[in-house]
C-alpha cells in the first residue's frame, strides 16, 4: 500500500507537471499576415459550382475574370482582358487577353482556359444550375487566337458585356484530367491568377492564402491572409479584442453595445457601408385578401418601419421603397415611403370592404375573416422579432396574423411551391441587375416572382430596358418602374442594412469604397 506521505508526493508531482504545461502562450504573430473572421466554412472553392457568398469573397483574391468592377465608380474595367469590342448588332463580344499572365503554378493563361470553363458551365453533368441559367443566352465562345476570344450572345441585352466579362475561369490544365468536376480535388485547392494563391485548408479551422509571386499586377503589402472559421459571434468578438483577428463583420448589437470602449476605439476602425441588398414582406397576390393593391398599401401603412429599425436594428439601416439597391443609379429617390398611419390604414381597409360585421374583433369581408399566416425562416432572428411585433400591431386593428416558422430547407420549398400567404425575406442583389427574374409576369409560375406580381406596363418596361444600351434612357425607364412598384406594393419594402466591419488599426490605407474593402491596397504600419 502506498503510504500517505508517498501519495501526497505523487499528487504534488502530478499537479506540478500539469501546471507547468499551462503557460499562457502568446501567438507569435507575423505583422504581414491578415486574420479575417468568417462565420461559416464554405463547402468548397470552385467558382463554377459554388453558390456561396463566402466562397465568392475568398475566391475574389484567388481567381480573376476578364473584366472587373472598379471599386469606386463601379464601372467595368479590364482585368484579364486588355480591351474589348462589341459588334454593332450587340451580339458579339470580343475580348483581347493580356499576355504573360500565369496561373500560380506557372502555366500560362490562355484562351483555352476560357473555352474550357465555358464548356464546363454548359455541361449538364456539372452541378451549377444557377450559373447555367445566368449563362443561358451565351450561345458560344470561340477562340480566335490564343489571346482573343469571342462570345456570341443570343439576343441584344444590356448586361451581356458584364455576363461575358465576368465568366468564372478555371485552369484547364488542372481540371481537365478526366475526374468528376463536381468532386474534383482542386475544388478544395484552387489555383488562380490573382494576387494571392491558396496554401492550405485546415478543415473547420482556417483557410490560408499567400501572396502569388507570379501575379501580373502590383504586389500587395499583406503577405498572407488567414481566414479563421469561428461560428460563434461572441467568441469571434473576444478574439478580435484580444488581437487574434484583424477583420470582423459585427452584428448590430455588438456594434452598438460591445465595441465602444476607449481601448477598442484606439485599436480598431469601425466601418459602416451599404451593399446591394434589401429585405421585405412579400404578399401573395393569389390570396384573395391581398389581391387589392389598396389592402397591400394599408398593410404597409400599419407597419412602423422607422420605429422597428430604430429599436430592433439600432437604427443601422435605411427604409427603402423599391426594388433596387438604394445607392444604385436606378433607385428613384423622389419616392417617399408610405407613412406609418394606422388610422388612415383602417379607413382604406374600410373602403376596401373590410369591417367587423360579426363583432368578433376581426375584420371581415363577404364572410371571410382577415386572417393570414406570415411565413418566416428560423435562421433569421430579425424575421422572428418583426413577426411578433406585427402580430400585435395587426391585432389592434382587427387583423389576425399567425406565424409559421420553418427551417431553411422547408422554407425555401414552401416559397418555391408558392405555399404561403405572406413571407419575409431578403434579396441579395448584384451591382448591376435586371428586374426580369423577379418582376416579369413570365416568372410567376417557375421563376422568382413568387408573389404573383403581374402588371402590363411593368412587363413592357422590363422588356424594353433589356435591349436599351443607353444608360440614361434605362435610368428613366427603371425609375418609372420603381414608381409602378411603389403604387402596387407587391412587397412591403423594409430596409437596406449596412455591413458593419471592424478593422485593426495596425493597417494603413484602409479605405471604404463603394464596393467595400480591398485588402490588396492595405499597408502594414511600421
Amino acid at each position, binding site marked *: 500500500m502506498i503510504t500517505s506521505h508517498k501519495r501526497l508526493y505523487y499528487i504534488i508531482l502530478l499537479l506540478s507537471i500539469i501546471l507547468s504545461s499551462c503557460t499562457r502562450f502568446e501567438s507569435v504573430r507575423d505583422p504581414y499576415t491578415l486574420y479575417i473572421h468568417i462565420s461559416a466554412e464554405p463547402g468548397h472553392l470552385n467558382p463554377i459550382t459554388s453558390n456561396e457568398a463566402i466562397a465568392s469573397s475568398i475566391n475574389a483574391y484567388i481567381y480573376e475574370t476578364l473584366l472587373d468592377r472598379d471599386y469606386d465608380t463601379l464601372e467595368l474595367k479590364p482585368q484579364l482582358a486588355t480591351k474589348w469590342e462589341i459588334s454593332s448588332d450587340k451580339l458579339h463580344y470580343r475580348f483581347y487577353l493580356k499576355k504573360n499572365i500565369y496561373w500560380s503554378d506557372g502555366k500560362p493563361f490562355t484562351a483555352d482556359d476560357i473555352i474550357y470553363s465555358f464548356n464546363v458551365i454548359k455541361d449538364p453533368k456539372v452541378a451549377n444550375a444557377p450559373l447555367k441559367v445566368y449563362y443561358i443566352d451565351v450561345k458560344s465562345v470561340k477562340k480566335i487566337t490564343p489571346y482573343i476570344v469571342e462570345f456570341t450572345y443570343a439576343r441584344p441585352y444590356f448586361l451581356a458585356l458584364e455576363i461575358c466579362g465576368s465568366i468564372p475561369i478555371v485552369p484547364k490544365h488542372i481540371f481537365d484530367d478526366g475526374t468528376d468536376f463536381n468532386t474534383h480535388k482542386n475544388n478544395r485547392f484552387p489555383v488562380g491568377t490573382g494576387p494571392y494563391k491558396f496554401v492550405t485548408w485546415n478543415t473547420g479551422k482556417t483557410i490560408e492564402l499567400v501572396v502569388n509571386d507570379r501575379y501580373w499586377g502590383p504586389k500587395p503589402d499583406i503577405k498572407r491572409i488567414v481566414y479563421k472559421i469561428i461560428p460563434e459571434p461572441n467568441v469571434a468578438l473576444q478574439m478580435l479584442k484580444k488581437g487574434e483577428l484583424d477583420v470582423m463583420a459585427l452584428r448590430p448589437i455588438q456594434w452598438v453595445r460591445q465595441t465602444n470602449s476607449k481601448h477598442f476605439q484606439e485599436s480598431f476602425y469601425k466601418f459602416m457601408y451599404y451593399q446591394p441588398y434589401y429585405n421585405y414582406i412579400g404578399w401573395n397576390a393569389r390570396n384573395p385578401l391581398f389581391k387589392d393593391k389598396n389592402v397591400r398599401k394599408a398593410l404597409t401603412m400599419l407597419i412602423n418601419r422607422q420605429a422597428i429599425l430604430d429599436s*430592433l436594428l439600432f437604427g443601422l439601416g435605411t427604409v427603402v421603397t423599391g426594388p433596387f439597391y438604394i445607392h444604385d443609379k436606378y433607385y428613384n429617390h423622389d419616392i417617399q415611403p408610405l407613412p406609418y398611419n394606422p388610422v388612415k390604414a383602417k379607413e382604406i381597409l374600410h373602403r376596401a370592404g373590410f369591417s367587423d360585421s360579426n*363583432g368578433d374583433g376581426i375584420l371581415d369581408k363577404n364572410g371571410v375573416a382577415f386572417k393570414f399566416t406570415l411565413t418566416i425562416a*428560423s435562421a433569421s*432572428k430579425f424575421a422572428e422579432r418583426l413577426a*411578433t411585433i406585427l402580430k400585435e400591431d395587426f391585432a389592434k386593428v382587427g387583423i389576425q396574423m*399567425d406565424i409559421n*416558422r420553418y427551417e431553411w430547407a*422547408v422554407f425555401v420549398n414552401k416559397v418555391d411551391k408558392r405555399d404561403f400567404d405572406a413571407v419575409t425575406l431578403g434579396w441579395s442583389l448584384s451591382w448591376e441587375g435586371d428586374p426580369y427574374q423577379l418582376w416579369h409576369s413570365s416568372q410567376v409560375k417557375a421563376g422568382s416572382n413568387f408573389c404573383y406580381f403581374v402588371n402590363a406596363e411593368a412587363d413592357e418596361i422590363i422588356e424594353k430596358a433589356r435591349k436599351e444600351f443607353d444608360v440614361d434612357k434605362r435610368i428613366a425607364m427603371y425609375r418609372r418602374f420603381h414608381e409602378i412598384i411603389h403604387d402596387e406594393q407587391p412587397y412591403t419594402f423594409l430596409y437596406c442594412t449596412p455591413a458593419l466591419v471592424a478593422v485593426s488599426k495596425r493597417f494603413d490605407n484602409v479605405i471604404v469604397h463603394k464596393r467595400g474593402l480591398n485588402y490588396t491596397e492595405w499597408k502594414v504600419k511600421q
Partner: protein
Amino acid sequence: MKGYWSIVWKRFKQNKLAVVGLCIVIFLFMIAICAPLIANNKPYILIYKNKLYFPILFEYNEFSGFDFKKIEGFKIFPPIPYSYSEYDLNAVVLPPSAKHILGTDEQGRDLAARMLYGTRVSIFVGFVAVFIYVTIGIIIGALAGFYGGWVDIIISRIIEIVMCFPTFFLILTILALWGQSLLNVMIVIGITGWTGIARIVRGEFFKLREQDFVMASKALGARDYWIIFKHILPNAMAPVMVSATFGIASTILIESSLSFLGFGVQPPTPSWGDILSQSRDFIDFAWWLTLIPGFAIFITITSYNLVGEGLQDALDPKQYR
C-alpha cells in the same frame, strides 16, 4: 385496489421531499390555469362611461384595439398588467424594476408575464406527450407480454427499431415533415418515447400472466382484452406510473431543448427554452434573461423528479419490509 393506493399514498406522504415536489407541481399547475388572471393587459374591472364591465374583460369585443392603460375610467388591473406578447420598443432589455418585476426581453415584453404563460407550454407538453406515449406503450407492451410467441418477436423488433433511432434526430426530421408547432412537438415526443413503457409493461405481463388469478379468469371463459385490461394491467401500473412521472420531467427538458435550438413552439408563444435561447445575445449583461427561465426549468424538473422518486419508493415493497 383502493386499499393498495391508499397505502401507497400514506407511504408517499412520509417522504417530505416528495411532498414538497408534489406541492410545487400543483402550484405550477395552478399558475398555468390562472395565468390569464395573473398577467394580462386587460383589467378585471372597468368602469367606463358609466358602464360596469365585469368580471373578465377579454370577452368584450367593442374594445378591440384599445390600450386599456390609457382609457379614462376606474380600472383594476391584474397584478402583472402585461400580456405575454405585448411589446414596448422603448423598454427593451431592462433589468427587473418596479414596472417590470422580472425585467423585459429584447422586444420590451414583460418577462414575468412570459414566464407565467410559459408554465402552460411546459405542463401541456409534459402531460399530453406522456399521455400519448404511455397509452401507446401500454397497448404495445400488453400485447407483446400477454400473447408472447410471434407477436412478441415482431413487437420486440419494432421496439428495437424505434429505440435505435437517435431521438433528437427523429424529432427534428418529423418536425421538418409536419411543421413546427406545440401540437407536433407533443405528438413527436409521444411517438418516440413509448419504448421504455412498452418494455416495462411487457416485463410485468410476463411475470403476471402465469399467476393464478389469470388462470382462473381464463378458466371462467373471460375474453382476452378483459383479462388484459381489467386484471393484469392494474397490477402492472405501478412501475408505469413511476416511469411516466420521470417521463414528464424529461419531456419538459426535451421541449426546452428543442425551443432552445429554435425548433419548438411558434413565436410568440412563450416557452422557457425559447427565452433562454434569446438570452444568448445579451448574455454578458442581461442576467435576468438567463438565470430566471433556467431556474424555472430546473425547479419544474426537480419537482417532477421528486414526485417520481417518492412514488418509486412508496411502491417499492422491499423498502418497507
